[in-house]
């Protein structure tokens, strides 16, 4: 695993399916890094982005906006987004804001 400043960690090299780890706090800084990484992978032809939230404690409003942007970008690139290992509080937040309607949660 490549650890990058402790915020976002990329698990696999560029391929059809990519797993990206969100940091412990998904805010503007870590969110923009995640967004950049996802865009790079989508442009390289990735068809499934898995965002792993196993380390994520908090997601703030900017984090939500960035995730929605990521879902939108993935859809327009013909790719799907999967959220994995999301904790209960974050699931509740995603449900409340409708994020879960656009992604598969595993």
């Amino acid at each position, binding site marked *: 695993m490549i650890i990058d400043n402790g915020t976002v960690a990329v698990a696999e090299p560029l391929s059809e399916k990519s797993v990206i780890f969100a940091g412990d706090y998904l805010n503007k800084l870590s969110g923009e890094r995640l967004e950049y990484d996802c865009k790079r992978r989508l442009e390289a032809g990735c068809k499934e982005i898995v965002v792993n939230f196993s380390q994520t404690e908090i997601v703030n*409003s900017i984090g939500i*906006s960035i995730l929605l942007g990521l879902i939108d970008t993935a859809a327009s690139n013909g790719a799907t987004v999967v959220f994995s290992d999301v904790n209960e509080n974050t699931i509740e937040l995603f449900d409340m804001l409708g*994020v879960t309607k*656009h992604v598969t949660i595993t």
Partner: protein
Amino acid sequence: MAEHDHKLIHAFGALADLGQEIANKNNFQETIRTSLHLISGALGIMRGAVARYSRFAHELNLLAVRGLGEDFPLSMSLTSEDERQFLTNGLVPIEVSQAKVLPFFQVYDASFERRRLEMFLPLVVRDEIVGAIFLGEKATGEPYTSYDKEVICAMGQHIGVAITQRNLMAEIERRVEENRLLFDEMRSTYHDTVKAFAAAIDCKDKYTEGHSVRVGKFSEIIASELGWGNEEIEGAAVAGYLHDVGKLTVERKIINAPYRINAKESAELNRHPAVGFEILQPIHHPYTDVPLAAKYHHERIDGRGYPDGLHDREIPFIAKIVNLADSFDAMTTDRPYRARRPAKEVVEDLRRNAGKQFAPELVTSFLGGMLKELQGEDRNKRFRRLLGRDYMEAEGIVEKLRYTLNEMEPTTPMTFVAAASIGERPVH
């Protein structure tokens, strides 16, 4: 926790973050981008944009965009009917589907439909449209509730204030720049006028053509060597340019007399400092002491000058500078009754008269500047341009300057080392 409470806490957090973002006064563009993120994230909105309104062009120009695609218009015009309606509406969200009677929504309908924009918030601050927020569908797929609209309103107020602040800052910056240009223009006009006056003064005397301009430049050199700031240096130059303005009232035949003038003629000529003061005094100069320089530039440290026979500390400093510059130019230019004096002789004259006619610290500064140029430490060639290369590079002048400076200021390290390097014994 009930979902409503959860939503409230989430939106409250976003609002607090937005307030902090705007108060932080970060880069404006970045603040608006973050604001759009916060409003989208607070309510789970898929896409949107924030625009600033130009009241001159009557256009909404997008500042931040999320997910609207490259074909979405970056600039949108408003008609006066749109403006009127938005002002009447105030800072309240408008549902796009309900507002299609307005020209704005008719013109851009296709773009709004394509990107599923549902909500439009005109940012009205103090009865003025400053911008707008465009919001797409909610991620839940549900329609906007009255609670959502209240959150949008609250966040829109913050964003509107941020845009207003930025507009005010831009206006202040524009006015400061305008004033600066105006000031530069006035300053340039003032300097041109001063130079024109100097040329007019010098025209009266065919033998001392360019004298006022040179005295201005020598005064500038002295002020610069004293370590003065740019403003003060300019002031010294102006004082030099105008020091002889009183000569405009002296008869040309007296000024140009190729013989030693008589007592009556001398009395008339000697009135020129007082007359100069009278001419310059009513003018509001950007620099202080210009009239005083004209009045007292013939005073001497030992009190034997004119018009008032002032002593050392009674003489304004600027007048001491102009006095040195004036005398130096008189010695280094040809006159009807004698040729210019050799540089070494002039240096010796300044040394001998330091403390009598001239302020010693000014003589050392001036000669120090000359030495620096001759030794290549100052590459501006100010003296060479005014006096000519051959004159400045006369044999033995560097040694003469070193020796003189060492005699006048034996404790100055530069002159001490310089004197030692040519084998002369510094005087303590």
